[in-house]
């Protein structure tokens, strides 16, 4: 078959470039914004999963680590430990903290993990630094210019950077770890802990123990790690979701508008040719196929370029702005492809309507 659609597009390269550029821009925006959203979700999820424990116990109503508080009686940790199915118990404390680095105030979410007791070797020791030291997230370190061996000051206390590694970066803040004793010295509220993390016996399913632990710690909410990670990820990004949706909608509209205008103007310019094709026997469906093929050709090329540029943009932006964490999943690419195809179909409506109204008899006008 003669590729009429492609030939028509390639005949006007400037118009083709404008259309592909518009769609590419829209796809870049959609992929980047969506990958930023997924990046934040993923970081929160990974951070919670990396900490020890199959079950999280929080104060009732606590939704996440950053945007809500949790205070439990410290005696609750002992009570939890006495439950038969519980293997090991940890406490986790944390709060946002402003340090002084060379006269400049920098903020990070400082946490402290402590092994309360239980059978076997405790996990998560990589999050427990020596006294007087701090482990920083690499994003925070890059942002503040801190390196291993540098010092951060909080009031009359100072912490030497023991290590810089990937801990957790949730866009608004990054996590850091100090030793539990230090945390208690600085912020500790006597008789309270923020979270209790529980490792259960290998033969026990964590979700079968939730009710029992909830009864053991009155006024608490008990989650499996998976449940709490999902809640925290959702809460951490939920506030951004409406904004992200608006940006996605704008991107879609920009792409759709550019594509529609280019395909429509190309159709008007070639209205006579559509009339000729009608005269020489092209079926209406055949002509609509030409319009849709043009639209899809632009959309698919724009999609390919857009996704490629989005990867490149994320890479460069991540280097320049460390908090800019992105994550592109295969299913998100598939979703964006679906959006692109939808864009191309919607963009074809007006031109198809125009083609349908082309009078074949007009070809007899010289």
């Amino acid at each position, binding site marked *: 078959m*003669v590729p*009429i659609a492609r*030939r028509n597009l390639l005949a006007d390269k400037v118009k083709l470039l404008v259309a592909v550029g518009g769609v590419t821009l829209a796809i870049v925006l959609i992929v980047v914004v969506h990958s930023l959203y997924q990046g934040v979700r993923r970081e929160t999820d990974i951070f919670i999963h990396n900490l020890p424990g199959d079950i999280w116990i929080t104060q009732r109503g606590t939704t996440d680590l950053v945007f809500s508080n949790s205070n439990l009686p410290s005696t609750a940790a002992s009570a939890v430990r006495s439950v038969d199915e519980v293997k090991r118990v940890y406490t986790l404390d944390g709060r946002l903290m402003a340090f002084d680095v060379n006269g400049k105030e920098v903020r990070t979410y400082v946490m402290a993990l402590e092994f309360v007791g239980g059978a076997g070797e405790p996990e998560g020791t990589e999050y427990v630094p020596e006294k007087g030291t701090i482990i920083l997230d690499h994003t925070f370190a890059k942002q503040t210019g801190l390196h291993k061996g540098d010092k951060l000051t909080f009031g009359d206390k100072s912490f030497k950077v023991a290590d810089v590694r990937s801990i957790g970066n949730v866009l608004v803040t990054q996590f850091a770890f100090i030793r539990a004793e230090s945390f208690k010295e600085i912020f500790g509220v006597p008789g309270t802990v923020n979270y209790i993390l529980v490792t259960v016996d290998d033969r026990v399913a964590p979700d079968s123990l939730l009710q029992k632990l909830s009864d053991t710690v009155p006024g608490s909410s008990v989650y499996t790690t998976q449940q709490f990670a999902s809640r925290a990820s959702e809460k951490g990004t939920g506030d951004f979701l409406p904004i992200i949706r608006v940006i996605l909608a704008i991107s879609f509209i920009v792409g759709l508008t550019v594509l529609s205008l280019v395909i429509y103007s190309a159709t008007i310019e070639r209205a006579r040719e559509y009339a000729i094709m009608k*005269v*020489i*026997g092209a*079926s209406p469906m*055949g002509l609509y196929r030409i319009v849709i093929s043009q639209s899809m050709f632009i959309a698919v090329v724009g999609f390919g370029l857009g996704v490629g540029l989005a990867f490149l943009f994320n890479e460069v932006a991540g280097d320049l702005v460390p908090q800019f964490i992105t994550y592109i999943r295969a299913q998100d690419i598939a979703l964006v492809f679906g959006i692109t195809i939808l864009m191309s179909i919607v963009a074809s409506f007006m031109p198809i309507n125009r083609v349908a109204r082309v009078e074949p008899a007009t*070809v007899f006008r010289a």
Partner: protein
Amino acid sequence: MAMPAATETGGSRNEAEVILEVHGLTKVFGSGRAAVRAVDGLSLSVRRGELVLVMGPSGSGKTTLLTLIGGLLRPTSGIVRVTGLDISSLKERQLTKFRRHYLGFIFQSFNLLESLNARENVEAALNFAGIGGRKARKRATALLTDLGMADRLRARPHTLSGGERQRVSIARALANDPQLILADEPTANLDSRHGHEVVELLHDIARQQQRTIIIVSHDHRIRDVADRVLWLQDGRFEGFDEGDTQQSALLDTAGVLYGASPQTASPQAAESQRRASQPVAEPISAAPAPSSAVKRGGWLPWRRA
């Protein structure tokens, strides 16, 4: 849609030979006092292999007649039959199929698809008829080669001369082996030499391929090759000429051609209409019609024997 073959349209040989029949064809544009009768009760009968030239001043209804025969406009009243099929009763989809398989169009401004090369322009017409791939390419190449365009197959329309473009247009018109070819001012945009070539070409197509051709034109050169010349004025046939063998007095009367009053033209017009509706007595040779130009092998239609 069941399209009857020409041989199925009647019992006698003469009836079977008729490709186009037009009865009482009228097309009125607008309504009330602004109504214009572009075609006014025309009747016409054309046989296989006949080349009919329709002449007349601008606005006389020539092109409207062509678009009505081509099924591109619906008549206000009257009937158009092509190979016995009443196209006035066809739905849009059926009309598309009808045009695809039964008609070939040649235009004054060539009307080639600018983004396609010469071969693709012909191939596209075949694609629309459901013929694709290598078969379509082979046929398009053969048609263009037969028309002397073998070395211009990949040339885009804007790089072709007027004569070459019209040859591509003719090849496209022949692509689906139509029985009836409608040509609208095919020589108007061509210089004398190329115009002559195209006229010769159309004549040979009618003669050798037994295709019926209706040409609408101002070009008097075409009179030499036409079997009949019909003169149209104000939507009515005002005169006729049976080619170069019978010179009608009407043709030589400028008053009738371009300015006769309705009163004086009326009896002549009635006779013209009667003559137009009858095919010429022996318009064609009795040679059987080949199915396509390609099957003719080395046929070179623009060189008259």
